[in-house]
């Protein structure tokens, strides 16, 4: 038994990484989505638009930049799915959740910052995504992405 394992070490390592990637990735994703949905509901009252803000004179008390970002890592299982997708074409479904989670989490972090500073709304929302580690999807390394959300938090003059 041991001989078989050591004889095909790279194959076993590959399967192990797949299994770890799948199980840990799935658990992390489920927990993350749960938390995202809960916090989104909590913060839903904080208005968020990507339009420029136009306000009447004297309506705005204060405004400042708020930002939030999240870096999320790929795993071996998702990477395998993506590699196979590279071959067949079509939606790289494995990566959709990564991008979605990163974006929503970044927005949430930005909103949390704005709320903590007493803002009533965020205008001019912008989203950006970048890969971290140029080796993403190359050789034996696993890359990660960052989603950045930033906008202008506005504190209104309210009685």
């Amino acid at each position: 038994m041991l001989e078989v394992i050591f004889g095909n070490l790279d194959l076993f390592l590959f399967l192990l990484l797949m299994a770890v990637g799948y199980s840990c990735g799935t658990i992390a994703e489920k927990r993350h989505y749960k938390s995202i949905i809960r916090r989104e509901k909590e913060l839903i009252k904080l208005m968020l638009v990507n339009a420029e803000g136009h306000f009447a004179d004297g309506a705005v008390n204060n405004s400042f930049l708020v930002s939030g970002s999240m870096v999320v890592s790929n795993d071996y299982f998702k990477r395998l799915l993506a590699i196979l997708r590279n071959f067949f074409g079509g939606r790289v479904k494995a990566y959709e959740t990564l991008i979605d989670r990163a974006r929503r989490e970044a927005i949430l972090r930005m909103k949390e910052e704005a709320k903590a500073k007493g803002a009533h709304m965020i205008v001019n929302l912008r989203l950006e995504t970048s890969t971290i580690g140029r080796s993403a999807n190359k050789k034996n390394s696993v890359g990660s992405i960052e989603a950045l959300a930033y906008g202008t938090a506005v504190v209104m003059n309210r009685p």
Partner: protein
Amino acid sequence: MKFTPKHIDENVNVSKTHPLGELAWLVGGMLLLALVFYLVLGVTADLAVAKIPIKAEVWLGEHFVASFEANEDEALRRRLQRLLDNLPADSPLHQYTFTVQLVKNEEANALALPGGHIVVFSGLVEQAESENELAMVLAHELGHFAHRDHLKRLGRGLGLTVAAILVFGEDSAISRLMSNLFLATESGYSRQQESDADRFGLELLVNSFGHAGGATDFFARVVKKAGRRVPYLLASHPHPEDRIEELQSLIRENGYPVEKSAPLGDDLLSETEPEQEAETAVDQ
């Protein structure tokens, strides 16, 4: 404009497919493609091999044999030459420049490598008891060359590995897996190819020595030494007993005379150390 906050439960940005389901589809598709490719490659390799000029093969051989130490063995060379001299004048084998090397290895084995290189393991020479027996082995290898079997064998495994490297890259785990898997399974000749090479070898042996003595000696020893082993279900070679039977029926059919075989010449005996206990292998 009134802002009405509303939480949207549905998420259009994420597909609903289960990742394991997707994996199954993708892997299944890959396997299907690989299977089709494998079948097509097998047919085309066999067809193409007959058309590959011997010059191109010699060039290929130069790249392969670099891994073996290229020291031509004089004693074996003389024996091979005797067989070559007895080939029919129109034999395609005359286009090859054959080299024969003796490699120190306990296995009783000989290989036909592309480009006309024959490698004989010292274990085989140690065990051989007669000139005829050794000649039969060399003639059998010449049979593989005559039928271009050594190229057919490489064709499929090589094609698959090259394809994997092209698709996944030289360093990827999948390429390594493919090369391990397919170069290993394709490393033998088919039973039919072995039988054909045996037939060719027998004819050449009779042409060179005037009789068929010693033709079955090698297999007889294999049977005696390795008879207990039963890994024959998956083996690419015919069972040695079947090969003996086939050779004997060929001898009977063609009415070849069988005489006493000549003992092994001193020039070969001095080159190997007889105290080594050689293991008999069946891949000859």
